[in-house]
């Protein structure tokens, strides 16, 4: 996918004979970015992560960028960072998928990276596989802030592995929403 310049509210000065390059700045850059917003979609396809039954917050090893035109994903840290200059408000969408868990375990999605909020927790299914999904909006400073998916397992009696089966994978999707 194409990448575009940072959008801005244009200013059209009166009494000025513009060149076509002026319209690139005034309209094309902004409209092109608003049509094709910065996005990241990634998941965990290659190696499962073990979530310990100690309750420790564990970063999920997202390893595959399905779509990352701005190149913000780091497969080593499993975090995504918007490029410098592209600060803004982002919509972050999480799915945490694991194997079936023991009866009393509570699955919790925790943000990784710059933010560490716990944003959804529920009793995971004890049949076939467990999962929870969540969403969060946050401000990310381009080139500086990062975001990833972490999980916590509470009151469980055994460790729990994430799933890497197609359709049952943990995912993170990030969408630029607004500048200010």
């Amino acid at each position, binding site marked *: 996918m194409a990448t575009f310049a940072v*959008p*801005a*509210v*244009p*200013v*059209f000065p*009166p009494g000025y004979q513009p*060149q*076509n*390059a002026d*319209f*690139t700045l*005034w*309209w*094309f850059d*902004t*409209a*092109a970015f*608003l*049509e*094709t*917003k910065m*996005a990241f*979609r990634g998941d965990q396809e290659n190696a499962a992560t073990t979530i310990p039954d100690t309750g420790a917050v564990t970063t999920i090893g997202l390893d595959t960028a399905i*779509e990352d035109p701005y190149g913000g994903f780091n497969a080593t840290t499993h975090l995504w960072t918007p490029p410098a200059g592209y600060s803004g*408000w982002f*919509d972050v*969408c999480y*799915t945490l*998928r694991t194997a079936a868990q023991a*009866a*009393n375990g*509570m699955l919790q999605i925790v943000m990784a990276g710059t933010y560490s909020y*716990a*944003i*959804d*927790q*529920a*009793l*995971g*299914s*004890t*049949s*076939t596989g*467990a*999962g929870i*999904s*969540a*969403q*969060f909006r*946050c401000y990310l400073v381009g080139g500086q802030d990062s975001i990833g998916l972490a999980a916590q397992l509470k009151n469980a009696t055994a460790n729990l592995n994430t799933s890497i089966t*197609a*359709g*049952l994978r943990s*995912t993170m*999707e990030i*969408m630029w929403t*607004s*500048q*200010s």
Partner: protein
Amino acid sequence: MPTYPAPRTWSADDIISASRLRADPVNLAWLLTKRPMFIGSQQSTGQSCATDVSQAVTLDTETLDGYNGHVIGSTTYSPPISGCYLSEGSVGFASASTAGPFSAGIQFNQNSVNAIVWGQTFNANGTNDAGPRASDIGALNATTFDFTNLIAFQNIGSTVNLATPNGAFFSTEWVSLLPSVGTKVTSPQPVELWPPNNGTSIANSGGIAAGATSVTVENAAGIVVGGTLGLDYYAGQQVHTYAETVTVTSVAGTTIGISATSYAHGQYAPVAVPVSAAFLNQQVRDVINFLAFPPVARLNNITSAQTLAAQTLPAGTAISWEAANIDTFGGWSASTPTEYVFPVSGIYTIYGQVFVHNSANNVSAGIGVSGGTILWGDSIKSTGSIALCATVRKTIRVTAGQYVQLFGSATTAAPLQASTASSAYSTLCVVWRSF
């Protein structure tokens, strides 16, 4: 304050004035780069939630409120401009020692009428704290003082406080104009560079013959279907007596389909690419209208007797929709009730929830695109015989004509919730985000 985009339709003799440009692109850029959006949370209140009461959540902390739609300490957000809003939130209950149901809901107040729809709902086991979440789309009219907010619910038989910190998170985002005022653009085009001042030139070896319906140019910037080209024109002036204008019928790279020429034109002949009314209507008016009124839908199943058969994940049952509360591009049809057909290619945010009735069960929610692998979200467990709601939220890339379905899967047969209160039912929300 953002203003409704209302872009003009350009005519051939219109002057591209600063005032006209300010009235169109500036309004849209203002609206979408400073989008009406609220992000708030409850951090310090530790709000008390009585049992079996729908409790509006107090938001004591604002993270973003660019247009002052919320007052710190209040529960509601009032939009600065009318539109469809995507409201979402999660509730973090403090530990409770008794098992019982917990839920989060989204409320929209429309013209003084309140409507809560419950999202993720489950029966906690009395060992763990619960953190349900919810999402929903509603149409809010600023002139009738509509509002939206987050609702918490529990029914364990005693009061439960929200956690401190992080007792709740709530956000709402303007996603489109109201269906009553938006203008649907069925074939939105990617924005193009403005035509170069000096135009371009013919690249066909030997030029083009009289009657030609295609021409290859050196640079296709600014050339759009419906626009005009001036063959053997330069800087607005004819450079030959056989200069002529043609209408663009197609654009494929630098190969331009045109209305048949009356004359032959040589290789390297200048081609003027004027900023035509067609260019402005496609590249300014239509782009603005589409971005301000993209595909957005909310489908519901309120009264259905549909039952989820006992299944083993990843098998699932597609949910049938009974009606569309919002469907800006008509993607849903009662004749194919499980499908929302994407009208435009691109990235979409999808939220779905599967509400089943009275079942001690494991229930999952997932989405599938055009019969592909189901992408599962929640797979949650209830420890008691209550209504149970699993949710899924994904951001996916699709092409126009594909369709999305919401799937539910339950380990024992479970009927969909048929709610007499119309507040606990299955929904599917769709929002176009990007090409």
